[in-house]
């Protein structure tokens, strides 16, 4: 029996370590439900779009190897750019955990009386098997409720590059949509990371640095 996405995301939100960072999708049902469960906490970057969420998370994980990075992606997005799994399997950052909400349909484009448009995972495609074939050290295809809590606990209790595909039922909750765009989402996340890590991410012109040094003298 496939799982309920909204309910699962709520349980995942409750397990995310306080000092972790999250790369999530930008728009669509997963993004809206994740934002609802996390009250749009700035540790989550709602910046990923079709085909680039894992790539963004991988870059973030490689930049901050001491920091747990959680990626939330959907099956349609992963399928759009399978080359991301090749890079993930080659780099294998131990601080990266990818969760895929795999409901087998393109949920966010809507549906008709003929039902929802299926993704390839509704057929023969097994994303966890593809990730394993790319060299990702730990992969699992979760289909049962009782497995899921154990897999989440395992993912957050060790440093192993992991790909956790979660088979969920199609269907929407009715949380409100997010209202921010990518620019605002970026600044929220960047300023959070700057405070968390004690670094500057956006640049400062060299002449301004020179000016401040002059004032300090």
């Amino acid at each position, binding site marked *: 029996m496939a799982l309920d996405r909204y309910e699962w995301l709520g349980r995942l939100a409750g397990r995310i370590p306080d000092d972790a960072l999250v*790369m999530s999708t930008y728009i669509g049902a997963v993004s809206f439900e994740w934002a609802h469960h996390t009250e749009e906490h700035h540790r989550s970057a709602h910046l990923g779009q079709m085909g680039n969420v894992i790539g963004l998370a991988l870059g973030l994980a490689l930049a901050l190897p001491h920091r747990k990075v959680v990626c939330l992606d959907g099956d349609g997005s992963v399928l759009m750019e399978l080359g991301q799994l090749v*890079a993930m399997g080659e780099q294998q950052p131990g601080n990266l955990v990818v969760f895929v909400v795999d409901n087998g349909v393109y949920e966010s484009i809507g549906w008709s009386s003929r039902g929802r448009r299926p993704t390839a995972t509704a057929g023969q495609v097994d994303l966890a098997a593809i990730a394993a074939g790319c060299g990702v050290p730990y992969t699992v295809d979760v289909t049962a409720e009782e497995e899921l809590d154990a897999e989440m606990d395992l993912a957050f209790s060790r440093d192993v590059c992991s790909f956790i595909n979660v088979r969920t039922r199609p269907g929407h909750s009715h949380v409100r949509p997010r209202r921010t765009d990518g620019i605002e989402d970026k600044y929220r996340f960047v300023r959070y990371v700057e405070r968390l890590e004690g670094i500057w991410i956006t640049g400062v012109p060299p002449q301004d640095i020179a000016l401040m040094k002059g004032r300090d003298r």
Partner: protein
Amino acid sequence: MTAAALDAAHDGLRAAGIDFVSGLPDGWQRPLHERVELDPDIRYVPVCNEGVGFSICSGAWLGGKKPALIMENSGIRVASEYIARISLGTGVPVTLLCSYRGDVGETEHWGIPHGIVAEPLLQALRIKYLIVRHVEDLAKSIVRAKRIAEAQLHPAAVLVSGDCVWED
């Protein structure tokens, strides 16, 4: 790639403060990938697809790195989907260092389409670029591209022509 061009490109990356490089090697810049991979101050992430490389560079920037993507100009086409989604939609600076296949002087027929598409595509993506045809301009062009990428929070590119890569 001549020894002078290789040194200039590597020097330019270091002078620009680039500490994270992703890319897909091509015939012209292969020695640069080999050099960067051995640089202890640069995290090198090879990819099999320039679009994935752009996404990885963007994620690295969000984590505080100063990224560059090294590729043939054909890779701009591949990466354009993610450049549009990430940089036009969000504003993330990645320095692009591209071989300029199909520039005047090209000898390979397959390089011609790369030359036809590269500049119009960069313009469509609102990416400022410098074309380098003299090796003495290469290092400073990389530094300048990275500077404006950071100032505008959007990619900037350096196109390295064959005149710079080969000895006549």
